[in-house]
């Protein structure tokens, strides 16, 4: 081994060293992003076309073009235009935003906690959001308050988890833990379980005390996009933007974390700060998704794993592709939710689990045959 290394060095000394042919590169998401974008655009197009009143793709395109300021002269029936602009498009766009936040948040939590079972609701966002929404519904508050209450509940629950978990970590060596490491991830995860259990208990109690509103609470908790409007889209856009930009900015550091917190710290990562920043960013996005769509399960765990198995485990690939893939997945799931039992709607969470789980198992099995899961 050393002998080979020595020979290389000797020959390098004699001739001016040519630029090594294989310059090391980090993983790049190029092709996977293109594929995911094509799927997303197709899904969104299908989402606008499919429904009780079936619209053809040219009609939809005309309806979209007619709103552009320099649009060509096209004649679109007002009803079709209204269906596209007032009903289908906001729903499709909102579904895409929610899906991207759930999948991106799930991937980020999996990276920062180095736990493949992590999902966006890990730190109590679902329980907190559910409690917030339940309080508004049982108190007879205006439905307009629901998003704010769910958002506040989700953020509050994660904050509580983080404060409890970070302070409850096991004592390290005297003089404090390493500068880059901070509290233990295990104590934060355990605090998340405790907080979620506690908030769910309160939520269940409130729900049982006010059986007249049971239906409303249940419908909210199952999640869905049936009430989607442009105002929901504009409501969550700022949080979506902050979350997406912040998570993508940390994709390289999440890759460093793959060697463990202690080694990442010795390589120069301020682990405690990285974890806090990523959790804040992911939680803003997840809380915004919960606020407008209720508790849609399963997206945040299966989409990142499907991307990991098909496009690779580097967070430089995983984060952007999960966001796009999650958007496409939720738009497709929503199409199924509103068509399989039309005119009734199946809860979208039922679709994400019923369709997502078998697909996930299929990908898992076909990959396992070729390589070990990391």
């Amino acid at each position: 081994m050393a002998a080979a290394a020595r020979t290389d060095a000797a020959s390098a000394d004699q001739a001016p060293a040519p630029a090594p042919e294989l310059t090391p590169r980090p993983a790049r998401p190029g092709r996977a992003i293109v594929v995911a974008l094509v799927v997303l655009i197709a899904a969104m197009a299908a989402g606008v076309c499919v429904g009780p009143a079936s619209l053809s793709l040219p009609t939809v395109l005309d309806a979209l073009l007619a709103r552009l300021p320099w649009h060509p002269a096209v004649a679109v029936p007002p009803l079709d235009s209204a269906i596209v602009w007032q009903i289908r498009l906001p729903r499709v766009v909102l579904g895409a935003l929610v899906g991207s936040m759930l999948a991106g948040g799930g991937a980020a939590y999996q990276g920062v906690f180095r736990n493949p079972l992590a999902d966006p609701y890990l730190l109590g966002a679902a329980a907190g959001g559910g409690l917030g929404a339940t309080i508004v519904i049982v108190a007879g508050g205006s439905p307009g308050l629901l998003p704010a209450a769910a958002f506040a509940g989700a953020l509050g629950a994660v904050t509580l988890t983080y404060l409890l978990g970070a302070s409850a970590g096991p004592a390290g060596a005297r003089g404090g833990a390493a500068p880059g490491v901070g509290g233990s991830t295990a104590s934060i995860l355990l605090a998340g379980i405790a907080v979620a259990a506690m908030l769910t208990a309160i939520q269940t109690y409130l729900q049982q005390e006010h059986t007249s509103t049971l239906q409303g609470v249940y419908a909210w908790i199952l999640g869905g996009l049936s009430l989607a409007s442009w105002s929901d889209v504009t409501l969550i856009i700022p949080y979506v933007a902050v979350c997406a930009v912040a998570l993508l900015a940390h994709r390289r550091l999440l890759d460093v974390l793959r060697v463990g917190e202690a080694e990442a710290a010795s390589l120069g990562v301020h682990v405690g700060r990285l974890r806090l920043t990523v959790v804040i960013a992911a939680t803003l996005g997840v809380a915004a998704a919960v606020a407008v769509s209720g508790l849609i399960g399963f997206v945040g765990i299966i989409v990142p794993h499907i991307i990991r198995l098909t496009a690779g485990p580097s967070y430089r690939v995983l984060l952007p592709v999960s966001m796009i893939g999650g958007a496409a997945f939720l738009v497709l799931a929503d199409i199924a939710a509103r068509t399989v039992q039309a005119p009734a709607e199946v809860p979208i969470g039922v679709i994400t689990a019923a369709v997502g789980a078998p697909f996930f198992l299929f990908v898992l099995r076909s990959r396992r045959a070729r390589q070990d899961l990391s």
Partner: protein
Amino acid sequence: MISLARVTVRYGSAVALDGVTAQVPAGQWLGLIGPNGAGKTTLLRATAGLLGCEGQIRVGGKAIGGLAPRRLARLIAYVPQRPQFPPDMTAAEYVLLGRTAHIGYFRVESATDRQVCAEVIDRMALAPMAGRALRTMSGGELQRVVLARALAQEAPVLLLDEPTSALDLGRRMDALELIDELRRERGLTVVSAIHDLTLAGQFADRLLLLAAGRVAALGIPAAVLRDDLLAGHFGDGVRVLLTGDGDLAVISRRRERP
């Protein structure tokens, strides 16, 4: 280059290091020896800034207690005893991680970073396997990959915790020779824990014998590798032999049976 003054580390009520004082001049190799649990790993982790401690640790004239992780990582490269190798990461991606402390927070690897890694990969004879996933590599190859990552940090101080424990006798020799060559080429200051006392005496400029967290002996190998000093810590059967080539060999004799 490295100066330890009364370094004390406690885990709860247990004292892992007790007032360790030592100096390592630039370009030298200090070998840490001592029985299991003597505090070798703790001393390395404290020196790497990964553990809080009492006393003072200065590296290159700077007290490491106040340094941010990035500054620290540009000063000290630390290779733990059992590094974690993400199975699906390629060797090249893994070596690039060594540049973390040189890359701005929101930036990605520059051409310089990639050039440094390419040279290190070349130097460590890893170029043919740079694109391979870590899970496909042997113990000896992984040893070179993790050393390459440490070299990519371009830090003047290299801390190694049992760098050869996973290797067979021949590969151990190769690995230590390689570390010694790199130390000379790059003027690195090396501190390493080494279980094998014979190898420790062959490679280190000086040895620090740790016992129960304290310095039991510190000096050139011939001064530390003595029957009387070692016997108290490694057992009565320990003998130091002078080989025909002038090397010191440390062996352990079997207990006599009645």
